């Protein structure tokens, strides 16, 4: 088998005396869709944030396409990378947040072209053309000039997905993308994500939507108390969980 796109080895993270991640190891291959489920406080969002360096690791390592992220390795020593290199490495991943985090002072279109124009220094006209294709893809071409405050939660999240895609990432990270949405708006966001999965995008999705995980994921990981408890195919983990904690969690979510 070829080398995985993303390799995480024994990832540890502490917040003061609280251990959020106690040694998480995970491989993800190109084109794979992985869903991480688990109770709140289980460390699944923290793990995702470690993957694009919004949190710095307290131990272990993460490699994307063979490049160690966040650190430069010399022998047995790890030197933290400067801000500029961290920013460059983040281009490999696109991130979608629970609370959308659209830039409030920019329109939908301006949000999408901000990365390509300001960070990647690409031509504005070209960036706008591509942004319009993306807006079309998430079904919001008519909202190009709307400010985030004028959009519903579901629309904001779809623009946020388009903004992440505009950077042409290798890997998309979703941090509970539907948790802040009204129930009737969840479907439109999942629809966009389903389409993205079908197009072959590599995705890691932290979610409570077990139906989505069952239908779209190639692999489901159940995390609890900062560690992976169980991992496998959706049928295995969701349909026939082997661990008591997984069973309890799935029963609690379904009821």
């Amino acid at each position: 088998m070829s080398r995985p796109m993303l390799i995480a080895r024994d990832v540890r993270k502490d917040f003061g005396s609280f251990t959020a991640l106690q040694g998480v190891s995970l491989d993800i291959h190109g084109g794979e869709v992985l869903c991480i489920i688990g109770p709140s406080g289980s460390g699944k969002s923290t793990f995702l944030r470690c993957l694009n360096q919004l949190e710095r690791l307290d131990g272990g390592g993460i490699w994307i396409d063979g490049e160690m992220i966040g650190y430069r390795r010399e022998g047995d020593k790890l030197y933290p990378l400067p801000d500029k290199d961290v920013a460059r490495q983040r281009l490999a991943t696109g991130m979608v947040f629970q609370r959308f985090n659209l830039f409030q002072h920019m329109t939908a279109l301006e949000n999408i072209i901000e990365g390509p124009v300001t960070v990647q220094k690409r031509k504005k006209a070209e960036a706008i053309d591509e942004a319009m294709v993306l807006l079309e893809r998430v079904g919001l071409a008519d909202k190009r000039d709307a400010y985030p405050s004028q959009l519903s939660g579901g629309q904001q999240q779809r623009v946020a997905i388009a903004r992440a895609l505009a950077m042409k990432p290798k890997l998309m990270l979703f941090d509970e993308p539907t948790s802040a949405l009204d129930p009737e708006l969840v479907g439109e966001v999942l629809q966009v994500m389903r389409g993205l999965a079908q197009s072959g995008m590599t995705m890691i999705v932290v979610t409570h939507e077990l139906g989505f995980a069952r239908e779209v994921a190639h692999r489901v990981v159940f995390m609890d108390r900062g560690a992976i408890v169980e991992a496998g195919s959706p049928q295995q983990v969701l349909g026939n969980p082997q661990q008591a904690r997984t069973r309890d969690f799935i029963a609690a979510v379904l009821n």
Partner: protein
Amino acid sequence: MHAETQKAGNDSWAGDYNVSGLQIVAPRHYGRWLAAFAIIAILLFIVKAFADGQIAWKVVGQFFTATAILNGLVNTIIMTVCAMVLGIVLGVVFAIMVMSPNPVLKGVAVFYIWFFRGTPLILQLLLWFNLALVFPRLGIPDVFSIRTVEVITPFVATLLGMGINQGAYTAEVVRSGILSVDSGQTEAAAAIGMTRLTALRRIVMPQAMRVIIPPVGNEVISMVKLTSIASVIQYSEILRNAQTIYYANNYVIEMLFVAAIWYLAVVTVLSIGQHFLERHFAKGHRKPDDVQKAEAAA
């Protein structure tokens, strides 16, 4: 339903509930009229007092556009602009330094804010103006130097005093503005590959401006009037020039009126400018009913 209404119409009590032909009468605001009469009476009294008082209104008109006064006005405006620009630049730099993870930069910024907010402005002006007492010559030894009194003119002393003092206050205003922007905005900026400084410039500062502008506008207005303090170190702004004139012609109140009217005029213009600036930076933060109106229009 219809049948029931018909039935009620036939009952004897139902007539009291007939709403056709009712008229809403606007409430009478007796209090407002009373207040208006009282205020007008007081105003008339004040106007009469000034009309009868020993004020030569002709002199006010005569000196309103006197060369010395207009020069003072220009100097006041120039100083306000220069000191404010210096203050804002220093304010932004020191606000970023205060929030920096670098303890050295943070320490320097904390000291700067502590020192310049902690001493009176007039004292700082006098210190700058008398710098020559400590350092008779400025420059790099053996390469270049110049006599301090030639560099530290009243203009330079006032600019340094006011601008550096203003920077200490503006730093705190800018810091509160930066803090007002949700941390999710910085994270989203980082996620699309922005460095810390780019995120600050492109994402955080434009949104912080909404919070920063009202207090800075307030301080610009304050600065217009604070320049009058520079009269103690011979900077010839409006008030000092007005004083110079009344030392000669003895029309004290008249000249003070001239200065007061000019200050009010400048401040009024600035207030209008602030309104438009605030509107520009409210982008994306329109009030909910504006959004509704926009949607209704579309």
